[in-house]
């Protein structure tokens, strides 16, 4: 028995030492690694985008040999499972246990909204991929920047292009019945109608719709249909759209998630001819984009899309901010301020800067899907440089309106 007790005591003492080490105050040292935490989704239905996010930042860090602005990087990836509660717990892990200097992600809007207050209270900067408009608008937060786009940022362009260049007069919209769908289609409707068009039908399908026939069957008497689907839904939607003969009658327009370059490998002939607006194009000719696309092909055998590019660019922002603070260890607020000041000349999406709310001002590409040498490609047909989340509107007037929603701006031309 005595032996047992000694063993136990020894065990407790050992645990004590371990705890002391854990509790040691975190020391900021010049040679301490700079920690990047990634909130992503690697399991469950949203894993598609989440896996790509991790590939994007991993590619960037590999190119830089894990050293940004002279600082050694430690990278920690966390799987949120794609829901708000998971995002909160994983944010706690990254911030409280791992003491990361910056958080990248998360993927879904609800995940982002669940942790914006938390990162502010804990003074940890975050570079978001989630698109929820108000995070960089009415509820802007000094610790949050967004290097991808708001929901409406690309569809503003799409609506304008559809009327002015494609000469469409009457449009229907269809998207998932959730905030990302509402905000995207609100952006499309606003610019399309202000240019002179009419949105005569707005359809919303539940997130878990197995078959889109009930929505496609309602389309009639329009010049075009704009869709804002995400995840695996665009794949299902476009096939049904073609199978039901709608594609031949109503040209299809798409937001960025519905025609992402990374989604092309899941699509077939039904995607040919679809015109989309995206803040990233894998064919864009910048040095960093060429390198990025080549490395993604080499390491993962994929054509990268927005999810990977968004995190790659987030990595570039972190590097630029580290350089701005001179490679020194600084507190979260100082680093967040530095992130806000980042401007980049060469990113996969071209020139890059942030507005005063921390949202990206950058290129938006209008692309048309084609089959070239047997492969589907999104060929860029027009680029819009320096597009802000406010499009051409006055920032004050824009923010005085309610946030984009299911019924805002009001659809006055529904039939």
């Amino acid at each position: 028995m005595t032996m047992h007790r000694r063993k136990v005591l020894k065990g407790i003492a050992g645990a004590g030492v371990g705890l002391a080490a854990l509790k040691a105050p975190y020391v900021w040292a010049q040679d301490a690694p700079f920690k990047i935490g990634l909130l992503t989704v690697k399991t469950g239905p949203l894993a598609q985008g989440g896996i790509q996010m991790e590939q994007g930042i991993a590619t960037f860090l590999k190119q830089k040999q894990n050293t940004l602005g002279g600082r050694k990087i430690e990278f920690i990836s966390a799987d949120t499972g794609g829901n708000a509660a998971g995002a909160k717990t994983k944010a706690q892990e990254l911030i409280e246990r791992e003491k990361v200097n910056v958080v990248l992600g998360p993927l879904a809007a609800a995940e982002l909204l669940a942790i914006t207050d938390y990162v502010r209270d804990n003074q940890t900067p975050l570079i978001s991929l989630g698109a929820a408009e108000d995070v960089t608008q009415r509820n802007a937060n000094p610790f949050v920047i967004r290097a991808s786009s708001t929901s409406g940022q690309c569809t503003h362009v799409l609506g304008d292009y559809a009327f002015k260049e494609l000469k469409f007069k009457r449009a229907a919209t269809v998207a998932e019945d959730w905030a990302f769908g509402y905000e995207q289609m609100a952006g499309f409707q606003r610019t399309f109608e202000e240019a002179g068009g009419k949105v005569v039908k707005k359809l919303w399908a539940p997130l878990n719709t197995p078959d889109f026939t009930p929505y496609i069957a309602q389309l009639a008497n329009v010049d075009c249909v704009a869709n804002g689907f995400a995840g695996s839904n665009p794949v299902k939607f476009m096939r049904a759209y073609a199978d039901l003969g709608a594609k031949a009658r109503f040209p299809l327009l798409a937001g960025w998630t519905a025609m992402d370059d990374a989604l092309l490998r899941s699509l077939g002939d039904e995607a040919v001819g679809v015109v989309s607006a995206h803040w990233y194009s894998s064919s864009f000719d910048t040095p960093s984009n060429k390198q990025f696309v080549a490395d993604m092909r080499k390491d993962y055998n994929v054509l990268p899309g927005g999810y990977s590019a968004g995190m790659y660019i987030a990595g570039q922002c972190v590097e630029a901010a580290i350089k701005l603070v001179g490679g020194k260890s600084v507190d979260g607020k100082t680093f967040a301020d530095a992130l806000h000041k980042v401007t980049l000349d060469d990113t996969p999406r071209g020139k890059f800067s942030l507005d005063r709310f921390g949202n990206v001002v950058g290129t938006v590409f209008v692309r048309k899907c084609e089959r070239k040498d047997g492969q589907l490609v999104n060929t860029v047909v027009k680029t819009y440089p320096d597009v802000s989340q406010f499009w051409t509107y006055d920032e004050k007037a824009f923010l005085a309106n309610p946030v984009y929603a299911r019924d805002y701006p009001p659809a006055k031309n529904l039939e």
Partner: protein
Amino acid sequence: MLRYIGFEEARLLAISSFAYGGLLFLLSSGFSLIFGLMRIPNLMHGSFFMLGAYFGVSMLEKGLTTDALKAIPKIGGAFNFLPSFTILPPNFFLIAIISGLLVAGIGALVERYLLRRLNGQELPQVLLTLGLSFVIADLCLMIWTGDPWQPATPAELRGVVQFGTLFFPLYRVAIIGIAVVIAVALWLMVDWTRLGAMIRAGVDDPQIARVCGIKVSQLFTLVFALGAGLAAFGGVVGAPYLSVYPGLDADMLPLALIVVILGGTGSLLGALVGSFLIGLLYNFGQAMVPDLSYVILFLPMLLVLVLRPQGLFGRSIP
């Protein structure tokens, strides 16, 4: 609140309703037999559907060849030593059947070595089948990644056919045909064969069936495998329009439950009618009452259950 629809739209919706209902029948007929005969709430039935679809997708890419094995993401490299060899050309329906057979084999193994021990214990069966569905879902995610896969609609069934002035989406019509063929085959089997008689006896009263000398244990394995195989076959047939993606299993499982509850358990006719009913309800409900789109299946199901707990065609639910 209520949106009126014209004839052309209604016609399209009706075709889709029966096509969707046909798929649901492939999914739920097996579930119904398993539940009716063995009283097992098989919560991995959606996983069988998804697994079958993934198998089908991989085989359809390259046909049933050794190259298809090599092309499976992540684990395909292990087969690189094999020479290029074609067993079967990429024929859609042949592959759907092979896929069904593969998953039927998996189902038989699960029944024989895992479920068998839990005979009569409902909650442990729930835990086991849910646990296995986690395993299958994660393995699929590992092998086929998070990307959605959608095999091309078989070339001869693509697009629309025209009768007079009316257009019919061809593949959907084909699915209705397949479902009807399978339904008739199942009906012939259950009503006219010795196996069917044993199944019916087992559904009616397992104990008496055992006393009468029916080898219930082999019967169980067979029926479980059949159910799994039908679901997998349905997965491949459905893949060109449902696509395959992580989470397909969880999307399909509640549908199987709803169909079986509406139609009553252990009854093939019930499953068939229930499937078509759900197809109609889903398609017309979404189009006509958009405000209730999220609850369009559960609200009517609740009504039926509360008013008639044994389902529309079932005897009383155990």
